[in-house]
Structure formats: C-alpha cells, structure tokens
C-alpha cells in the first residue's frame, strides 16, 4: 500500500510540474511577461549572449575582457558570457540557453569549424542574429550567421615576411644568405595555417633558405624543446620565425642556453627572432630589449568592432560578411618604418611604454 501511495505522489508531482510549465508558458504567450522590475530594466538593454570557446591563452583572456568591457550596462548592453571550456557541446548548450532566454544577439567564438548547422538553424528560427568571432564555422548555408570578425592570419604572415625582406635588404644581406626555421603553432589551427603559408610563399618568391618547419604547439616549453633540437641539427640558422610569442620566449631561452646571441645583427652572428601576437607582457619586454626583433600583432580586442556590428544590425543595416580587425607591426629597430603587402603599406611602430 505504502509504495503505491508513494508512487501516486510522485506521479502527482510530475503532473504538477508539467502543468506548472504549461500554465506559466500560456501566461507568457497571452501577455506581457515583464512584470518584475528587473525584466523591465532589461527590456531597455540590448542583451547579447557571448559563447567564448575557453580561456586557454593570454590572447583568449584579452579577447574575453575586450568583449566584456565593450558591452556594459552603462552603454545600454547586457552581456551574458559563457565559457565553453574548449568543448563544442558546452557551446551548443550555451546557445540553446541563450535562445530560451531570448537574447537579442548571439556572439560565438567557435572551438571547431564543423557541427554548427542545427544549432545555428535554431537561432535563426528564433530570429536571433549570430556574429562569429575569431575562428570561422563550416556550414552549408552561409546565411546562418550574419557576419564574422577576426584576424587575417595569412596577412599577418605576409606582413612579417615583408618586414624580414626589407630589413635584411637594408643591412645588405643577400636572399640566399637567409637561413630560416619556422616554429609553427598547433598544426591545423587557422593561425598556424595562415602564418605558415605567409612565410612559405615569401620564402619561395624571394629564394630564402627555409630549412625546417616544426610545430611548437603555441607553448613556451615546446618552443624551447624544438629550438634546442633545431640548433643541434643546423649550425647556420640566422632567423627564427615563431608563430606566437610564447614559442619565441622558449626559443630565445634555448638559443641563449646553447651559447649563441639573440638579436638583429645577423652579420655579427646573432640569431634574429620574430614572432606573433603581441599580447604577452614578457614578449613585449623582449621586443623592447631587441631580443625579439619584430612582432606582428594579432589583435584580440574584438569588443568594439563587434559592438559596432551589433549597432548596425540594430539599425537594420547589413554589415559586411567578413570583417578584419586592424593589426600592427611592432619593432624596436628603427630601420624599417613601413612594409608593403599587395600595394597596401603598413606602418611599423616602435614599442612604447
């Protein structure tokens, strides 16, 4: 008897749950739900759901902070930030929650390229525009997202190659005298592909000696390991192209440990290190000291740009599909003041502060 009574109770409660959901949703449909003060206030704000892929690097943290400081309540925005912890399933869950919460816009920094079709379709059905940040998605229907904001990694690589070209010409080195090694990023990442291509194409066009391409996985430890190995294999390396700052810090460590000197004076036997990102404080200090000769910035500050796009969408305008952020070149060497890629010139800035 007792067990039957218990079971009945459970069933009753389950029914109550379903009924509760049903009735409250009916209430919502029938009229204005904004009865509480909070939701009235929120009604004035533009709510943006931001699904960030994780917090794996300095760059990513800077990217998140930029978004958080661009969308503040004082400016009329309410940002709901959700960290995906490097997992697509977490990001999909986050987007579904955003849809149920009826946010006005969704900003997505996807962890992978594939597997987004169905959830972005749900967002579109709900009438919520999606803005992509940093990495792209590979969906059959390109109208599933409004636009994309991010870096042009190949351009970064080409700018760096152009800088190497102008600088080495200025100090009177012949193209055949350049012996370059590339410490690549995580193989398959968009940044690695673009930066590697930028250098490889330039090396072929200019006739540089690109001796090796080895992955350092974007980390300091691997950068040190890989560089130590390369120094044992080759004794004529004079330029090290690191695909991010952390690798460069590791590589410099390895070069100094091998008793060689890091610097831009290649003619005197110094090994020149160049790198990417420009977010890491230590790397910027190295650049000031001249240990890193040039840094191509990978701008993580997407916040203001994304906010501008949201404002355009609010006004009913259609923004460009692909939006590249402005990125600079930093160098403490005053010899090269600008580089040219495809006829467009990019200034080289000194390292201030």
């Amino acid at each position, binding site marked *: 008897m007792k067990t039957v009574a218990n079971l009945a109770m459970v069933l009753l409660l389950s029914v109550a749950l379903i009924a*509760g*959901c049903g009735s409250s949703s009916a209430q919502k449909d029938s009229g204005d739900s904004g009865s509480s003060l909070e939701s009235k206030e929120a009604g004035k704000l533009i709510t943006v759901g931001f699904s960030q892929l994780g917090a794996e690097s300095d760059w990513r943290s800077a990217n998140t902070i930029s978004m958080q400081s661009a969308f503040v309540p004082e400016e009329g925005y309410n940002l709901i930030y959700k*960290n995906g912890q490097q997992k697509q399933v977490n990001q999909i869950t986050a987007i579904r*929650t955003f849809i*149920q*919460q*009826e946010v006005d816009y969704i900003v997505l920094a996807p962890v992978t390229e594939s597997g987004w079709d169905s959830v972005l379709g749900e967002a579109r059905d709900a009438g919520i525009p999606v803005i992509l940040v940093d990495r792209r998605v590979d969906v059959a229907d390109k109208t599933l997202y409004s636009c994309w904001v991010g870096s042009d990694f190949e351009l970064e690589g080409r700018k760096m190659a152009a800088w190497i070209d102008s600088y080495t010409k200025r100090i009177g080195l012949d193209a055949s005298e350049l012996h370059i090694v590339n410490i690549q990023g995580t193989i398959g990442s968009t940044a690695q592909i673009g930066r590697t291509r930028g250098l490889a194409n330039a090396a072929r066009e200019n006739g540089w000696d690109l001796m090796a391409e080895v992955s350092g996985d974007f980390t300091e430890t691997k950068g040190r390991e890989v560089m130590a190995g390369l120094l044992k294999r080759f004794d004529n390396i004079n330029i090290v192209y690191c695909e991010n700052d952390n690798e460069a810090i590791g590589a410099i460590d390895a070069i100094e440990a091998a008793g060689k000197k890091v610097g831009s004076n290649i003619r005197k036997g110094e090994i020149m290190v160049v790198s990417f990102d420009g977010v890491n404080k230590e790397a910027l200090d190295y650049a000031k000291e001249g240990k890193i000769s040039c840094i191509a910035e990978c701008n993580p500050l997407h916040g203001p740009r994304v906010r501008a796009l949201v404002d355009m969408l609010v006004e009913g305008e259609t923004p460009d599909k692909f939006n590249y952020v402005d990125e600079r070149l930093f160098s403490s060497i005053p010899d090269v003041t600008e580089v040219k890629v495809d006829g467009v010139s990019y200034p080289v800035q000194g390292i201030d502060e």
Partner: protein
Amino acid sequence: MKKTSEKSSIFTKLNDTSLLLIITIVIFFAMYIGAIIFQGGGFTKPQMLFNILNANAALIITSVGLSIVMITGGIDISVGGVVALVSMCCAVYLDKMGGSIIGSIFIALGIGLLYGLVQGFLVAYLDIQPFIVSLAGMFFARGMTTIVNTAPFNVENAEFVALKDTRIIVPGMGSYTRKGIYVPAYVEIGVIVALVIVLLLFVVLRWTKLGRSFYAVGGNKQSALMLGINVKRTKFLSHLICSVLAGIAGYVYFLHVGSGSASHAMGMEMNAIASSIIGGTMLTGGVGNLIGTLFGVLSLCTIQTIVASAGLDDAWWTGITIAAMLCIFLIIQSVVMVQKQKALKG
C-alpha cells in the same frame, strides 16, 4: 500538540528511502519555481527543461547505474571514462571505418558489458575495493580513448547525423519566437532512452527479488547472507548493470554531441555521484530511489543553468554551486534523519 503527533506519524510511517525522495522532489520544485519567479525569461518555457534533459540524458543513465551500485554499498568511478571511450570508439567506427549504426550500438553495449564483467568479477569474487577497481578502470578507459584517436573530431556519417538530429516533438509545449514563428518543443532520442531506463529499473528495484536484494546487501551484508541472498552475485550484478548502463550512456552522449574526444564526459562520474546523493542515495548503502536520482540530476543541472543564466559563468562558479548544493542536501538529509530517529524514540 495534536499536530506534532500527526506530523511525526507521517514521519515515522515513511521509510528512509521515501523520505529522502520526497525531500529531493520538493527541493527541485522549489528551485525551479524560484528560477521562474526570479529569473523568468527562459525558465517559463518548457523547452528550457527539455534542453536540460537533452543535454543530460547520458548523465541520468550513468547516475541510475551509480545509484544501484551505491545502494549495494559500492562505488564506480569509471563511468565517465567508459562514456568517453564508447563515444570515441563509435565515432572512429562510424566516421573512419564506414561502420553502420547497428554496429556502433553493439560496440557501445559490448564495451559496457566487458567493463561490467571484469569490474564486477574483481569486486564481487576477488573482494577488491570497488573504488580501486573502478579507479583503475577509469585510467584504462581514459588512456584507451586517447590511443583510439588523439584529436577530437566530428562524425560526418550522414545516417548518424540524421539520427542525431532526430527530434521527438512534445505536443502543446512549444512557444512563439518574437518573429511569431511557432517552434515546437522537442526532446532527443536519448531522453526517451533515459526515461525508459529510469522507469524500468525503478520497477525492478521496487518489485523484484533482485531489486530487493540490492537494498538488503547494501543495508546489512550479514543479515542478507542469513536471509539466503547470494551477496557476491548481487554485487556482481550491480556492477554489471552499472557498466552496461555506462555503455548505453556513452552512446546517448555520443548521439548528443556527435563527436569523439578524449576530453568528453570529463568528471561525469563525479556529477553522477553528486546527483545520486542529491537524489537521496546514501553512500553507506541500503538507501536510494531511482526516481530520486532522476530528480537529483535535474536539480544539479537546473542549478547549473540558473548559475549560467545569472551570468556567473566560469568553471569555478559551477563547481562552487554544486559543492554548496551537495552540502545543503547532506545537511537536510541528516537533520531529517535525526529528527526521525527522535520521533521514533519519543
């Protein structure tokens, strides 16, 4: 005066399992209604609850398995690893070896069965601590997952993707978007699987000899032996059921995420243990209810959703709220049990 005596009679009439179950259900409803009142928005829509179910169907299944093991006084921390291993193996089989759906389901069940046989044997017949056995099992599963394939990848197999995107419409629960489009509410296949498993095993635990022997073994091994229950066999079966359920959960998880990755289901065993405890299962054994476990999972995931919706999203906040919730539940449980003991004595 009369009132208190009435209250204590209800108190004493219920057995421990039912009492804890009611506490769990009441707390879940209190929390959900609280979320509707204070956060409004999404929580008023049924789809919010369905999304919680969709995302956590696998957790429900693993938690049910864990509850059964915990009722017999054991523990199994390998379930998260098994889920990851199953999804990776199925992903590789479907995507890189051109396998079929049926084949992948057999792989999932096979891995679960194998795990259950080995772990159950070691625990029940060789009398090794279940914690140690399943710790080894967890390391093995995590290691194997990486050996099968290191890099995470999405499965592109068309048949599978169609199955993954299959939605079971729940009639009358949809809602209108601001564009005025009616979007029906839906659950994924995994949710149906999970609910069927909960109901089925609930019945087994309540009304079969095997089910009752789980409680007897967990409650008091000596008495169970004297009652003529085969304690070893019961323990073995509890581990077998738990691991097979982990295999099924692995497939359900795989069906939800559609990818293989070594980092899948990280910490799922811990969430399953937490859900079981919140659901009124006692680590000491002998007490627990699978409906409670279901509500345990729902409570855990609802609080996570509340935390996330409140914008407090960072990994640590989720962890802290789960910790706080476990703590509150354990205190309530022990207070209620102490009160009951008092009422029984007085």
